[in-house]
């Protein structure tokens, strides 16, 4: 991983931090969208390197966190069917639904398997023709092409025992929802580099234009994040609102065209519920009609479920940057990563879990 070292170099990081201090004359509220970026900020203490006036608030970009409770409940219900093999990304297994999680379903005898890539699920389907294999296809635009590829491959092979329980979310509609909210405080965004690697920058340019808000497409290492903050601060201080790309080593303007093609072939845009935030119009993906035979929601007739989040959870405010995780009265007390009451405490990339894992000492003292 030598190529990463320069992006973790503390001398470069400190030099950037000093430049940020020099460039900042007023307070600014910036949001990093992606949970991976939140994780890096907490892990390396990037926010401690910034001047007091720069507030980083943590966006909704943790795919595990924003997957609705209903989807988790459906996955558990499917996994418990005797002829089903449920295949999932590893970190979904511990995510609590309304009553249980996939680990517990596994302990009750459900066949739940972890995959590193959705094509492994297709492989499992191929080698278990007498079982129904369901892949829990969640994530942002980053996982969508690979998930689409799995459905495409299954269709091409004519597999009849493979389906996907889809809960895909899209970043730009979430930013739009934040910006139109009357309580919005965010003045600049660090856009998620990996999402833009896939879909490119076009939609972010639209957001910059529509809301006159600076957006910098940023990477995930400490130096990336500091550089993105510096780019945002310079724009804000100069009264500008442009789209800039800090993550040039990965992101091109048009993105990955073959990945976009396969996404478009398999998925269509749909309304989507976000855990902790609620429904956002046109903010998700569902399988196209041509792929209905691979849609677990239709194959298994799961019906509609609605489940309410615990009322004490303030995740909606946390995910909009209105409150910090530590403002929550149950943070670290009745809400912990082992027993999360809400979305951002669920995965290590959720804002609350990141605070809990890396910053508890600072809260206590």
């Amino acid at each position: 991983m030598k190529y990463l070292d320069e992006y973790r170099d503390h001398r470069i990081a400190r030099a950037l931090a000093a430049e940020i201090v020099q460039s900042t004359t007023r307070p600014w509220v910036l949001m990093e969208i992606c949970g991976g970026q939140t994780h890096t900020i907490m892990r390396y203490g990037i926010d401690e390197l910034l001047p007091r006036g720069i507030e980083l608030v943590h966006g909704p970009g943790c795919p595990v966190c924003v997957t609705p409770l209903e989807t988790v409940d459906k996955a558990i219900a499917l996994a418990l069917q005797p002829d089903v093999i449920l295949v999932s990304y590893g970190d979904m297994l511990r995510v609590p639904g309304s009553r249980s999680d996939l680990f517990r379903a596994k302990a009750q005898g459900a066949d739940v398997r972890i995959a590193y890539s959705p094509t492994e699920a297709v492989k499992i389907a191929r080698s278990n023709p007498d079982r129904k294999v369901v892949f829990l296809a969640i994530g942002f635009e980053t996982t969508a092409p690979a998930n689409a590829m799995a459905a495409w491959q299954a269709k091409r092979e004519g597999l009849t025992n493979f389906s996907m329980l889809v809960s895909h979310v899209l970043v730009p509609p979430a930013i739009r929802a934040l910006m139109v909210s009357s309580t919005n405080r965010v003045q600049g965004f660090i856009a998620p580099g990996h999402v833009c690697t896939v879909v490119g920058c076009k939609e972010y340019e639209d957001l910059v234009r529509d809301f006159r808000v600076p957006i910098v497409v940023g990477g995930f290492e400490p130096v990336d994040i500091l550089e993105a903050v510096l780019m945002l601060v310079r724009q804000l201080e100069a009264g500008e609102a442009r789209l800039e790309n800090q993550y040039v080593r990965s992101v091109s303007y048009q993105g990955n065209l073959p990945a976009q093609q396969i996404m478009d072939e398999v998925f269509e845009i749909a309304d989507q519920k976000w855990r902790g935030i609620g429904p956002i119009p046109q903010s998700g993906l569902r399988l196209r009609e041509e792929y209905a035979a691979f849609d677990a929601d239709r194959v298994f007739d799961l019906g509609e479920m609605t489940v309410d989040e615990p009322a004490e959870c303030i995740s909606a405010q946390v995910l909009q940057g209105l409150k910090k995780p530590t403002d929550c009265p149950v943070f670290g007390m009745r809400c912990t990563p082992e027993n999360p009451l809400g979305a951002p405490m669920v995965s290590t990339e959720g804002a609350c879990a990141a605070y809990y894992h890396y910053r508890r000492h600072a809260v206590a003292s």
Partner: protein
Amino acid sequence: MSTKTIVELSCPTPLAAKDTILLGHGSGGKLSAELIRDVFLPAFQNPVLARLDDQAIVNVNGQRLAVTTDSFVVKPLFFPGGDIGSLAVHGTVNDLAMGGAMPLFLSAAFIIEEGFSIDELRRVVNSLHQAAAEAGVQVVTGDTKVVEKGKGDGLFINTTGIGLVPEGLDLSADRARPGDKVLLSGSIGDHGIAILAQREGLEFETQIKSDSAALYPLVGEMLGATREIRCMRDPTRGGVSSTLNEIAERSRVGIELEESSLPIHEQVRGACELLGLDPLYVANEGKLIAIVAPGAADAVLQAMRRHPLGAEAQMIGTVKKENPGLVTMRTPFGTTRIVDMLAGDQLPRIC
């Protein structure tokens, strides 16, 4: 006892009721600790067990005997750098060595699934024998059970070990004091990543090998340098993080690590990046952590580095008065973060 990680839960309220065993109960993290606290300790309580070290130390006619037992359920059975046979020796003799005991005798019990290849069994047994011989212990008793096909996973092994603790030596996880130094005998994460890579069919430019090894010879060198060692632990399941959290909790002290001093091989670091894992939580089978009085730390470090098993030894941190029960880490950025204990197994992240 062999479930190695004991901490008080940091969450003051009880977790939601759990009525079934989850895989996480065997991870060496918080769930394992909870199981020991709620199920095993109330049943077996006695002063020897209450120390909750990796080995029990009992007095028999003036001799201090160390006893420990461990079960091995590794999959795959054969992996780069070892197999279930050698691991069954190293795991148990290392638990003895961490109490400062010279390992002497082992028992070995085999639980075999119907249909298992006798040829493979022979390979495992030969490897176990060879590892025992190299560690200077004899397998003096054993047991064999066969379970129906589908009722086991090929082969499980349990080994129990007995060793002798030198007069006057008292190593325990509750003896760390502010000012003490934290020493680590070498690079971390090799075993866990070697197993994972083999299991998942991941390939890297150079093969990552398990570090599985018997640590007593290294311990002997260290004890030869000083008796000012407070505590030794081998960071197996749950990795360096779980072991240090346990020591911090038991000694009611804080432990502060220096991130830049952690020895991690490039290949392991790369694999961890790829899989979204943190090497601090990945298992080791041939490494030890020693908490040493400040005045003796350099001498112990030099002694460790003279031995092949400690060639890459590093001083990785300091015991502090602040933040009792917590492990923190100074990052190269001059900031500090918590190195938390995980609830269960570490899971690969989605992105």
